[in-house]
């Protein structure tokens, strides 16, 4: 079953500033539809004065991602929100290898004495007699 990794989305905007216009339109028109379409994401809408409009996304593994939505249209904010809802909280950096194992070796990793005759490693009373 699919578990959405996005826990909550906080929409912080100012009720009067000009760059929060898109955010206000989003709240009026598309926020309720977005909340209905993504029932497992909690959407918090908190108007606050003075700072730039932000979209805070918190994920199940604890990462918090902030996206500036200043001077963005309501459509763009909706697309951003759906993109964040589809992501997981892992860091967005270059993956060095697309594979990973905890047990890389089944037969025992090679060391310089793997293919040598065991007379070099084994010390026993019989060898000394011969």
């Amino acid at each position, binding site marked *: 079953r699919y578990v959405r990794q996005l826990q909550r989305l906080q929409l912080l905007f100012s009720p009067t500033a000009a760059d929060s216009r898109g955010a206000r339109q989003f709240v009026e028109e598309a926020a309720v539809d977005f909340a209905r379409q993504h029932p497992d994401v909690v959407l918090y809408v908190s108007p606050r004065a003075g700072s730039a409009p932000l979209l805070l996304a918190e994920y199940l593994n604890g990462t918090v991602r902030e996206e500036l939505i200043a001077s963005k249209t309501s459509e763009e904010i909706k697309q951003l929100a759906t993109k964040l809802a589809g992501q997981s909280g892992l860091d967005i950096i270059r993956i060095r290898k697309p594979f990973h194992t905890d047990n*890389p*070796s*089944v*037969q*025992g*990793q*090679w060391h310089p004495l*793997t*293919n040598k005759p065991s007379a070099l490693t084994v010390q026993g009373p019989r060898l000394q007699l011969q």
Partner: protein
Amino acid sequence: MVLLSAQRWIRSRLTDRFWRVQEVLKYARHFRGRKNRCYKLAVRSVRRAFVKSTKARREKKRILRALWITRIEAASLEHGLKYPAFISNLLKSQVELNRKVIADLAIYEPKTFKSLAALAQRRRQEGFLAALGDGKEPEGIFSRIVHHY
């Protein structure tokens, strides 16, 4: 640092220019010398670093393949086979493993690699018999080709 008075706040303003400069300097932090601190030197170094990393993506494929070949050669010499003999006989026995996988097997599964080397050696002997024995002996077992179509 906590700046308590308004005058101190204004004196240490973070302008847009600061952020534009930091965007470049963040890629130069691990360089040596003044290039990791001074913007003018860092711009040139960062640009060269990016160009080199773009061009090196083509070289990386060649370098890694050469590394795998070196490792396979070392491992097969431990079992008494040279690299060209090993690879050619493995291909003739229809074992289509690429060099990356064979190198990983040589490191992490030495017994599997030993059996691959033994297979290549057996196929080599059968090839010699077929070429020098002139048709009187039966055909080799490992020289049989399986058609999958």
